[in-house]
């Protein structure tokens, strides 16, 4: 891997996103609208304080999953990936560039969405608010890594978009937002133990309820990061220099 090539790739990806004003606006605005809606629906009840923070962890995962899977599918189908891999660019540089670019976007998204949730919607957070942002960014990188890996199995953008409900919704159902994970049927609880989003949501929930949360959150974040690294490693196997 080369830092120069990774940075050049991240810069190129960011330039592409910058040229697409609508995507950029949606990246920033949609999480805020959803958080605002949620706060409004549950106005006067404790529900928003319970699920607001976990959702702050879910949004970046979902959004980055979608964007990355479509973006890399475009690279695969337009021939640019084949061209890139015939240059000195390494697979690690390619993956690192994407992770870095979308990680940076996630920082902006997380700062805006978290700020909006805390200051505008009055989300109560017991632990440090800055950790919310850290967890959100790790979730975003997880989304990017998974999206990259999954895009290898889609031939069209229609298919890529449908991987979202296929990969993300089961995790959403099992992550403990709807029913606490220890209240799930035993088999489903075991299943939720091996899904990364469960740990992302656990981390967010711990942050909102415990003042001294750093230890537990650190463990959950480490698990999510390990899943992300695993997905990147699997993703790199799907980048082939030689194709049939």
């Amino acid at each position, binding site marked *: 891997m080369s830092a120069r090539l990774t940075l050049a790739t991240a810069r190129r990806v960011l330039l592409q996103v910058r040229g697409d004003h609508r995507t950029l606006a949606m990246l920033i605005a949609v999480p805020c609208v959803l958080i605002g809606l949620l706060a409004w629906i549950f106005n006067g009840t404790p529900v928003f304080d319970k699920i607001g923070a976990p959702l702050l962890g879910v949004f970046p995962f979902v959004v980055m999953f979608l964007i990355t899977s479509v973006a890399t599918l475009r690279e695969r189908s*337009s021939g640019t990936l084949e*061209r890139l891999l015939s240059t000195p660019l390494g697979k690690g540089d390619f993956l690192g560039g994407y992770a870095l670019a979308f990680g940076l976007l996630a920082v902006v998204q997380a700062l805006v969405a978290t700020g909006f949730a805390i200051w505008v919607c009055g989300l109560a957070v017991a632990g440090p608010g800055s950790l919310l942002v850290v967890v959100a960014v790790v979730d975003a990188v997880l989304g990017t890594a998974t999206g990259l890996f999954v895009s290898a199995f889609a031939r069209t953008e229609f298919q890529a978009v449908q991987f979202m409900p296929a990969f993300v919704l089961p995790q959403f159902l099992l992550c403990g937002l709807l029913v606490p994970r220890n209240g799930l049927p035993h088999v489903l609880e075991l299943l939720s133990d091996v899904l990364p989003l469960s740990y992302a949501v656990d981390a967010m929930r711990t942050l909102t309820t415990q003042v001294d949360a750093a230890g537990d959150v650190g463990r959950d974040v480490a698990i999510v990061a390990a899943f992300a690294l695993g997905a990147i490693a699997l993703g790199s196997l799907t980048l082939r220099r030689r194709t*049939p």
Partner: protein
Amino acid sequence: MDGLHVFRGSREVLPGISLTVPRGQVVGLLGPNGGGKTTLLRSIVGVQIVAGGTVTVLGEPAGSPGLRARVGYVTQDASVYSDLTVRANLTYFAALAGAPRTDVDRVMEAVDLAADVNTRVDRLSGGQRSRVSLAAALIGSPELLILDEPTVGLDPVLRRDLWGLFRRLADEGTTMLVSSHVMDEATRCDRLLLLREGRLLADESPDGLLARTGAPDAEQAFFALIETEAAA
């Protein structure tokens, strides 16, 4: 290249081809569509899974890491980022090749795109787009340029200009391997490879080909070769 053997799917595209491309020349790879031209070029670049045979490029096995900065490849479809400007595309490819930024201006001049540097690629015409793709391959001045149908869909003036550019690059020592299914482009090459249904019908100079077949031009020569083969 020795005994190159390639399947795509269950179809045998190249049943075993041996040839040598001399350095510093413009070599034309001609033949009808579906004849294996792209597969042959991809094998030289090293992005094609091959079933057998060896391909040696500039003294190294095709596709080895050391070759990636020395070989430029332009695919048939313009493989550049349509949502970036011409300059942003070329700046990125310059960074990948480790080429200086001045190279970006040089290649834009070379393909006559200097007026469109700040235009997004998806707002360009098809011909302009393929020239951006070509420019991206010229960056870093690779020793071997592999161009897959670079003049398809271009008007006659541009085609003449591009062949002029290929000639200049070859004179400066670059080896040019250019595929085309337009036979009248054969006269602009130093050497011709005629490929049909995965088999090499000719590997000689344009004059040699005309002399051997007694045909007035490359197209007639090609037909003559097909007929000879069919008769044999």
